[in-house]
């Protein structure tokens, strides 16, 4: 029963769906679904985290124990699998649920944290941490912080400061570490402090070729271009070939390929004598795609 001593009126029940709806989290998740192709395991994890946070909120509304949950995450996956994009969306979701106060994303790499001489690292790292307060700190290729081959490397200092803040100011900022899977695993093995402070390890799978081709479709649509039917077939073939080549960076390679196709289309149009119409300007043809070096035999990994 509600007694006089309770500090605030304790509710009897809480509507979880209402919490999510009010915070417009469902909306953010749906936006993520619509914007990002594939990534099913990532989306599932995000839904789980959002649900967990809503439950935490409900628990604290009912006056139950709800220690600030540890929200630090690690994103592992190959380049171009959408880690930064998802991090931005997470910042937004956390902000809407009230787990970070401002919801901005600060993306940094080793260079932003580690100094060049003795005594340079600590202020630099603290500066970045201060900027990230109230939001999400996204450390790309986090394993570069740790260089085991050089025991006097200043990265260690940055790691120590990071760990301290991750532990003591959990309600002030959320840290997301990102990078390739294998190297992150090595990094966590040699820095057990990190893996124990990170609650959510999310693995980003590579895109399948169908997913890549629908990503390409989305990109073209946003840039107001289109592939003619022959070009669409050629592009699917391009994706198949490109995937097998080294240095394949998923969505980023697709973007680069499209940019190159646009370049070729432009020079083709300029070479045409006489006027061009809107249709010509927005259409990428088969020859724009087929001219790629990926289709020549002696290619060793470029777009």
């Amino acid at each position: 029963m509600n007694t006089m001593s309770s500090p605030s009126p304790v509710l009897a029940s809480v509507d979880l769906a209402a919490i999510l709806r009010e915070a417009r989290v469902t909306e953010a998740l749906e936006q993520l679904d619509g914007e990002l192709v594939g990534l099913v395991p990532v989306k599932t994890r995000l839904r789980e985290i959002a649900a967990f946070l809503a439950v935490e909120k409900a628990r604290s509304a009912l006056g139950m124990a709800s220690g600030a949950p540890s929200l630090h995450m690690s994103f592992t996956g190959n380049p171009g699998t959408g880690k930064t994009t998802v991090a931005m969306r997470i910042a937004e979701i956390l902000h809407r649920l009230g787990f970070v106060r401002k919801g901005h994303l600060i993306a940094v790499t080793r260079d932003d944290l580690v100094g060049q001489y003795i005594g340079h690292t600590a202020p630099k790292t603290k500066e970045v941490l201060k900027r990230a307060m109230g939001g999400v700190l996204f450390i790309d290729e986090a394993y570069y912080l740790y260089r085991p081959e050089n025991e006097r490397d200043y990265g260690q200092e940055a790691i120590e400061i990071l760990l301290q803040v991750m532990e003591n100011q959990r309600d002030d900022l959320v840290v997301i570490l990102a990078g390739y899977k294998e190297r992150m695993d090595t990094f966590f093995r040699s820095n057990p402090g990190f893996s124990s402070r990170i609650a959510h390890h999310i693995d980003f799978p590579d895109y399948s070729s169908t997913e890549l081709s629908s990503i390409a479709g989305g990109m073209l649509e946003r840039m107001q271009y289109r592939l003619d039917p022959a070009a669409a077939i050629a592009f699917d073939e391009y994706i198949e070939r490109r995937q097998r080549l080294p240095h394949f960076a998923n969505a980023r390679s697709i973007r680069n390929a499209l940019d190159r196709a646009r370049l070729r289309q432009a020079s083709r149009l300029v070479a045409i004598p006489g006027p061009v119409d809107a249709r010509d300007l927005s259409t990428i043809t088969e020859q724009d795609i087929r001219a790629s070096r990926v289709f020549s035999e002696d290619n060793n990994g470029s777009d």
Partner: protein
Amino acid sequence: MMTNIGARLTQGQFSFLPDLTEVQITAQLNYALKQGWAIGIEYTDDPHPRNTYWDMYGNPMFDLKDPAGILKEINECRKTFPKHYVRVTAFDAARGWETPRMSYIVNRPKVEPGFQLVREEREGRSIRYTIRSYAADKPEGERY
């Protein structure tokens, strides 16, 4: 100043009020950040009103979104200089302003003896007035 109201230094904003709590400081910081001002932390043990330039504690803080980091710095400064005056300034870099827009004391010594009014007799029985801080008699670092 010279009357030493409540034995408290009254410089900057809120100086006639009781000391600001952390919540109140956070609210003030939030306001400054929302205006896009750069926040600096300064300390001194020579609170003469004409001592405009206090020592900076760390660099001025630009491009912050949230006051948590600043509050941490303030508390570190308080810990380093528990018996100094510590103030927070918010600098407006906008063209035409280019000046501190806020300045308030967040840490002060326990006992503030105030200022003495010094009268100097000049030629022709004229008098020159000046003030000096009682605390400033002692060397730097040993005041208060």
